[in-house]
């Protein structure tokens, strides 16, 4: 699954305007996102807060600095975690 993620910003500009959707999985739950989405787009699309969230792919943490450049393609399964109350 990791190999399907492409770390490239070059393809963003011409696909963002597209209304075409792809299906990915966030924590195993299917979600539709626009073609050309990256990890930062997920934060924006679901109106998540700027802090307290973190992505992982294949049990590897994705640093925040790479969210914009981590592009999503059909069939990707990403993990998304949130800081919550706990003891």
């Amino acid at each position, binding site marked *: 699954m990791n190999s399907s993620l492409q770390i490239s910003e070059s393809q963003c500009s011409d696909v963002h305007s597209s209304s075409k959707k792809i299906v990915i999985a966030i924590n195993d739950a299917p979600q539709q996102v626009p073609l050309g989405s990256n990890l930062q787009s997920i934060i924006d699309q679901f109106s*998540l807060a700027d802090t307290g969230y973190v992505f*992982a792919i294949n049990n590897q943490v994705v640093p925040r600095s790479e969210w914009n450049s981590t592009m999503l393609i059909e069939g990707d399964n990403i993990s*998304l975690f*949130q*800081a919550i109350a*706990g*003891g």
Partner: protein
Amino acid sequence: MLKIADKQFESRLFTGTGKFSNGDLMAKAIKASCSQLATMALKRVDVNDQQDDILQPLIAAGVSLLPNTSGAKTAKDAIFAAHLAREALATNWLKLEIHPDPKYLMPDPIETLAAAEQLVKDGFVVLPYCHADPVLCKRLEEVGCAAVMPLGAPIGTNKGVVSQDFLEIIIDQANVPVVVDAGIGAPSHAARAMEMGADAVLVNTAIASSSDPVAMARAFKMAVESGRMAYEAGLAGKVNHAVASSPLTSFLDEMS
């Protein structure tokens, strides 16, 4: 003043953020406690069912965050959770907790020591939750943990400092701060731990599950301050026979 790693704390009361009925009450209670360090957990997000944002009120109150590795059953799980937490909350502070058994939530000493050693190498400020085991606490200190957090009693039981005899040995031997975590159910328990010389206590359930968490938070604040003050003042020693507080005069005998 308490110092752990590079941080100084005026308050010796650390708090958990779990079990409060809502985020607003949690924020008010933590503010009332004057705590400067509060634990948080991580969970997988359901993007269609989002939780209250409890982060902003804590940050606004100036509280430092101590993410935990709750849910980890192995050292491998905990190391992954630690790296997630560091990225999510932009802090390298970590409450390391590994408990494979959901019934008693007993910390696994072997996995905890292994994870602590790796996480220290990875640059974390590791505060491990562990048994009140003097040998284990020494080993955790030796691998570079910034403090140790032995339990007073099983998590959430509110039974108090039932591990007292072992905590006393841990406190006596430690070269890092000792934070009594888990089991403290009443302000008097917290005061007892502080009188024994614990450097701090971590309280969650006893505040969050009380009838009035804000008032209880204040009560814990006072108890921790009182216990610490008593420790610093030096408790009078115990003896097994009566020693009069008033001079024993003989004038009453002379009246008869």
